[in-house]
């Protein structure tokens, strides 16, 4: 019974959804409204399609080398030296992601729940609690995703259904009015909201059935696109473009607007924050797991669980570097954008093409 570290295809789908949906869901509509106005949803769709493209590349890699995991493939295709450089960037990326997630969570918790608690305490407790599950293998991460996945779907659906009475559909209009030049900026913003699919690098190899795994992963991305687009439209219809541009966390504000007659709980933002902590946790756990996994592979050690605690201080210190939320997005966020571009977009595509090239050369 030991050694059964497989994940099912449905767990892969859940993993994609729960890892991608994270911190961004609260602020995404605002960022999109800033970047591309009423047509933010276009950039969601484009960014989602781009993500699917990369996901397909990742799937192809594992089809070419069916009996190797990501690290073995990378070593074989790119050679030890080059791949190690990529691994270092990948590790830096994941550590920065963990730091970014915990810092963003801490800032929001401070803003909405615990005004007087020091940021440090919130960050360290959150990372510590995540470390408990990050030391497990991918099958446990898959199970975790499957528990959070229905929560994401149900809470999103509930939020939208409950806020329908207050919506004004005319706020969505006019469509297709924005400048073409603004679309790339929106895509850049929303592409970062699709970060998280890189968990596929570590989970595809362990899938139970090879046939359906790519399909499940793509379904996952599609579900995320659907969630993002509906939330964008709902918040846009609620606040209008100018209102949306002034709301830092429109999704959370949307919760505050809910006022059902005769409803027991008036202020639902506490509940929303509670659920959101779980959603961030479901992004944090795979990232932390991946960071430790990459680190252990850099050192050629099989078991990643012994590195969970040693890398904790690194993430903690990095998360404390930015002064405030603005510098957080400007420094860590920028770093994540660029390093993410290298390791979760360029790296899989590069591995795919070099792999194909090597395969053809070997055939000749």
């Amino acid at each position, binding site marked *: 019974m030991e050694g059964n570290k497989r994940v099912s295809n449905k767990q892969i789908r859940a993993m994609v959804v729960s890892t991608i949906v994270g911190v961004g869901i609260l602020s995404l509509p605002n960022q999109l409204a800033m970047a591309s106005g009423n047509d933010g949803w276009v950039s969601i769709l484009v960014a989602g399609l781009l993500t699917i493209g990369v996901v397909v590349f990742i799937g192809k890699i594992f089809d070419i080398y069916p009996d190797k995991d990501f690290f073995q493939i990378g070593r074989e295709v790119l050679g030890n030296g080059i791949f190690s450089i990529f691994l270092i960037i990948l590790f830096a990326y994941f550590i920065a992601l963990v730091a970014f997630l915990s810092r963003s969570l801490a800032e929001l918790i401070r803003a909405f*729940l*615990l005004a007087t608690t020091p940021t440090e305490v919130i960050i360290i*407790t959150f990372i510590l609690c995540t470390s*408990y*599950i990050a030391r497990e293998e991918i099958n446990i991460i898959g199970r975790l995703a*499957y528990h959070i996945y229905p929560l994401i779907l149900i809470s999103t659906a509930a939020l939208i259904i409950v806020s329908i009475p207050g919506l004004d559909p005319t706020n969505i209009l006019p469509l297709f009015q924005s400048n073409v030049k603004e679309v790339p900026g929106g895509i850049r913003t929303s592409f970062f909201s699709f970060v998280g699919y890189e968990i596929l690098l570590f989970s595809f190899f362990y899938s139970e059935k090879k046939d359906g795994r790519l399909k499940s992963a793509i379904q996952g991305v599609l579900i995320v696109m659907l969630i993002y687009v509906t939330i964008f439209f709902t918040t846009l219809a609620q606040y209008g473009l100018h209102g949306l541009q002034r709301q830092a966390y429109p999704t959370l504000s949307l919760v505050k607007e809910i006022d059902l007659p005769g409803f027991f709980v008036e202020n639902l933002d506490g509940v929303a924050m509670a659920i959101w902590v779980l959603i961030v946790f479901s992004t944090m756990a795979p990232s932390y797991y991946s960071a430790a996994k990459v680190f252990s592979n850099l050192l050629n050690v099989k078991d990643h669980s012994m590195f969970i605690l040693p890398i904790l201080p690194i993430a903690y210190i990095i998360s404390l570097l930015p002064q405030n939320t603005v510098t957080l997005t400007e420094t860590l966020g920028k770093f994540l954008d660029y390093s993410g571009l290298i390791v979760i977009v360029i790296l899989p595509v590069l591995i795919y093409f070099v792999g194909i090239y090597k395969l053809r050369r070997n055939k000749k």
Partner: protein
Amino acid sequence: MNGKLAKDIEQNIKTIEGLFMNCYDIVIRRIEMGEGYKVKIAVIYIDGLIDKNHVSEYTIGFLNSEGSGSFSPIGYGKDILDYISKEVLANAEVQEEKNMQNIVDAILSGDTVLMADNTDKALIIGSRGWVFRSIEEPETEAVIRGPREGFTEVLKFNTTMIRRRIKDTNLKIVVKAIGKRSKTGVALLYMEDIVDKTFLQEVNKRLMSIDIDSISDSSSLEFLIEDNYLSAFPQIENTERPDSVAASLYEGRIALIVDNSPFALILPATVGTLLQSSEDYYSRWSDSTFVRLIRLIAVGLTVLSPSLYIAITAYHPGLLPAKLTYFLAASRIDVPFPAVVEATLMELTLELLRESGTRMAGPVGSTVGIVGGLIIGQAAVDAGIVSPLMIIIVAVTTIASFVIPSTEFASGLRVWRFILMGFSALLGLYGVMLGIILLGSHLIKMDSFGVPYTSPYSGLGIDTGELKDTLLKAPIQHLRERPEFTRPRNKVRMGGYWKNGRK
């Protein structure tokens, strides 16, 4: 002692007397039979472990009547024990044995041993019969409708109750002796054609690896073979009800019945099975579905309510509707303690009451309950030490914990309730969420014999539609397949089409 029997009966008796020195309950009855040539015979047993009437009448009685009458030198020269076993004894179970250790074990388990002179064999006569508790209604798992018999302390009767329910040769009952000194009989029950083979191997492997002096109850066995012994949650189910065991066997699970314990073990156990009661299958499906949802709510209440109270009163009074906030503040205005002290105080009081109620039998226990629950609660509110809302919260928490069918699971949740109270006292609602994350991670990462502990919620059951028999309870017509989490080899349990389950 491990050696074989000697030919000389005196020497054998001496060995046995040596082993059983200072054991007042051993009885060695010497008989001589035969006319002319007397054959020495000894009947050895432990007083109290055997059915005395049975042995006197059918063993010693027949030997005597044979010895005084027709027993002649014909028997001598031939194999005398063979003759006695085939032509003299009227007992149902008789078996030859040469090994001294096995003979001693047989005596210790309540069999009677018959030795004769001039042979290196002995007869073991099945004569077990001791004083036992009769079959009674199980106290911990009462049902309104359903069978009323519960297990007793006698292994044989317990396995019989299962056999009566499963008249199929595929029901295998393998008995092993576990415990070097106690040699406790442990029966492993499974359905040969349903159970998953690797699962069975794993259970056997774990049973074999046990090296311990004694097993005093099935709980010791449970702690020895479960996956994570440090966890507060049971990973093996226990039950007093033979019908539950039989139903689980049909699902492809494995049962362990330990001698001297009225609690059978069923494995693997998951959160889903621990929240089921056998009554669910005896009441109408609508009722059972409702009760199962109630149980999930009870799980939430028993873990969360005190910590949410602390978090809301101490950190986020603004999260409640305005009227409720004022009410809360007004009811707490005289309370001299912070919410966490108040909650811990009341929870501890209630745990004291519960513990004393459990240890005190019958009427005294209920008196303790009334005095504690009513009088202390009322007095505490009157004195202004705690707020009335706190009393309600504590009472609801306790009642909710009694709703959960598995007491072990409920007490695991109780441990986590206190952990969550600590978290919420330190970090408010965020602390409660951290506690939930830790509790959830703990449950998610656990396995019970290779089955995810949180199944069918872990993605296993949602795929296979198993939620209809865990989250809900679909009508029996819709449960035509065995649950998938045990990986049964024979999947279908009901043939035919959906009309009434008949073809």
